[in-house]
């Protein structure tokens, strides 16, 4: 192997793939029955974390960053003057296997710029997956990014070998897609999602009856939206996400804060900070919908179309609904406890389990690992009387926003050499 060349290609094609946020390796249970190499674990494993704090679970690369499209928001766009490279199918297979054997990764996340046309590119992605599964007896995780516009047959092949397939919606709305990626077609993105979701649920129903049937994208499909490049507000974005979850039963919608990479004046300019807090709030809101029994209109509505950046969306909901509190942890229903700011899913479960044995007081709650300073304002328990709490929403908002990890610390703002 020409190591220098491979190293250079890997750097170019990993760099080009890094804006895809998903690195999840969870949700699949592929066992190593063949006594070959690899398996997947339901919870996934992050083998390392980048210096920006994101999980590195998979070898996430593009097959090539040559691309016939010129999407404004994308580093690999045709008109961008960057170094180009392409891996051969065998090179990707070798890298995956050798990294996997050293326990660097859980598997492969393969995506690609589009060379020639959708089918030509997709066919190569499928070939990598097929080779790994059939020739190398590889049972690790494979995530394939579907190329918009490829045929259903190729998509079906991909899902047969991969654990997860995804199509990136990229722009939250059709009008933004038209503006930023005029050569791409909204329908080419949405149609495959519909196709995959039908197939996934059909195959999973069949497999309930005959488990020996081959799996079909057992970890489901996901998608990604770029946030902050186009003018959509949080309400627009969440409405799209909500409908994707409901219509196509997506496992995940990823929100990717736009990292400025283009001098085009239709986009935020280079040097504009990445909207990290906004991205974080969107994920929090997403979690509220998926794990906390919140409906979208409880979190956001057209009258206040953006999430509060200073406080998290659950706290924001609680402050808008002071009549729903305080909640008695010793008697309230699980769903109500879930709504207490500072109490997560696992703490809520602990509370409902533990209170069957004894009444819970402040000491127990503190030890359960809830965010006590936040939660104390919204709950009562045995020794309530002795505990002062703020009940005025405005005062409370001010107090709690000051405790946020995003709160600007006055001390840090002082110039170093005043």
């Amino acid at each position: 192997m020409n190591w220098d060349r491979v190293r250079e290609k890997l750097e170019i094609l990993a760099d080009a793939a890094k804006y895809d946020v998903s690195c999840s390796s969870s949700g699949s249970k592929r066992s190593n029955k063949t006594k070959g190499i690899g398996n997947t674990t339901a919870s996934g494993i992050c083998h390392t974390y980048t210096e920006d704090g994101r999980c590195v679970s998979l070898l996430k690369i593009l097959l090539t960053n040559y691309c016939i499209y010129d999407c404004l928001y994308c580093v690999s766009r045709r008109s961008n003057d960057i170094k180009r490279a392409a891996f051969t199918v065998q090179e990707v297979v070798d890298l995956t296997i050798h990294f996997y054997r050293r326990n660097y990764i859980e598997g492969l996340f393969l995506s690609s710029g589009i060379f020639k046309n959708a089918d030509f590119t997709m066919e190569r992605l499928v070939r990598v997956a097929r080779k790994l599964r059939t020739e190398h007896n590889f049972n690790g995780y494979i995530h394939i990014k579907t190329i918009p516009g490829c045929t259903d047959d190729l998509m079906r092949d991909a899902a047969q070998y991969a654990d997860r397939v995804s199509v990136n919606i990229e722009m939250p709305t059709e009008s933004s897609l038209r503006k930023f990626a005029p050569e791409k077609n909204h329908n080419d993105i949405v149609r495959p999602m519909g196709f995959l979701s039908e197939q996934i649920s059909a195959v999973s129903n069949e497999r309930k009856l005959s488990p020996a049937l081959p799996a079909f994208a057992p970890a489901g499909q996901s998608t990604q939206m770029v946030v902050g490049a186009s003018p959509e507000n949080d309400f627009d974005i969440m409405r799209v996400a909500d409908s994707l979850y409901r219509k196509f039963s997506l496992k995940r919608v990823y929100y990717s804060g736009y990292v400025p990479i283009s001098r085009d004046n239709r986009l935020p300019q280079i040097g504009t900070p990445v909207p990290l807090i906004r991205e974080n709030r969107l994920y929090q809101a997403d979690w509220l919908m998926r794990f906390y029994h919140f409906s979208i209109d409880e979190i956001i509505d057209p009258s206040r179309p953006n999430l509060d950046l200073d406080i998290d969306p659950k706290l924001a909901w609680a402050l808008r609904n002071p009549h729903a509190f305080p909640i008695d942890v010793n008697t309230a229903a699980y769903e109500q406890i879930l709504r207490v700011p500072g109490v997560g899913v696992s703490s809520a479960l602990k509370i409902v389990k533990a209170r069957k044995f004894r009444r819970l007081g402040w000491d127990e709650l503190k030890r359960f690992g809830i965010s006590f300073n936040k939660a104390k304002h919204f709950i009562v328990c045995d020794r309530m009387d002795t505990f002062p709490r703020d009940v005025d929403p405005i005062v409370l908002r001010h107090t709690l926003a000051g405790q946020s990890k995003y709160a600007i610390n006055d001390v840090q703002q002082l110039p170093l050499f005043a």
Partner: protein
Amino acid sequence: MTVLLRYDGTFDGFLSCIFEVYDRKLANFSIVRMQHYHPSLLCEAIDIGTDPTKAARVWSGLHKHLSRTKCHEIYKSFLSELPQIEQVLSDFIRHAFASKGKIENDIGHPAVLAVSQIAHKVHREKHRMEAFVRFQRTKDGLYFASIIPDFNVLPLIVSHFRDRYADQDWLIFDRKRKYGAQYDCKSRKVSEVLIDLADEAQGEFLPAHLVHDEEIEYQKLWKGYFHSVNIGSRKNQKLHVRHVPTRYWRYLTEKREW
């Protein structure tokens, strides 16, 4: 007077002590590993031999009172090797045996909470070892990794690696406790190895003359990959260190200085 039960530090030894506690109807007792024992005038010390039959009786008794998951948590917390672990576990076990129903969700009880928290800590390190172990391929084709975990997690990670790397020979060695687990892909068996590593294999990374010709190249490819996937404008060192605590950096090929 408090009775001190001394044992050999094995899990079976510990369970044998629990057996004696009930057999001798001891109310005031304390269980201590041989190597942690300090003579005291106020205590009477007894040596408890490890007896697999007695241990098995306690173990199956526990399964009548607790779920399998909870029993496994007892084992996991034992592997923490914390100085107070015998105390915590015997409090827990006595609470379990004394109660009619299953007490494992009674986390308002201090011992129940402690066991679940310690087991959680051990589990977290087990998970981290599954993530952070980095194999190096040696000249003779063995995939070798050496670790120094805070807790004795090697017994917990063996099955994960056996299932995953079924077609390669590997060895994971705990340098702190001086034992390892070695997998032989022909017989598909894992065996315990008690060896002294050669001086030159004492570090995290093996010297160049011991590793396979391609090994260093793959390490460099991985390090290059790690740096390429980073997004500079999102740098967040605090988050990075929270996920990858600095004490684990020494295992990581991507952090290796060349």
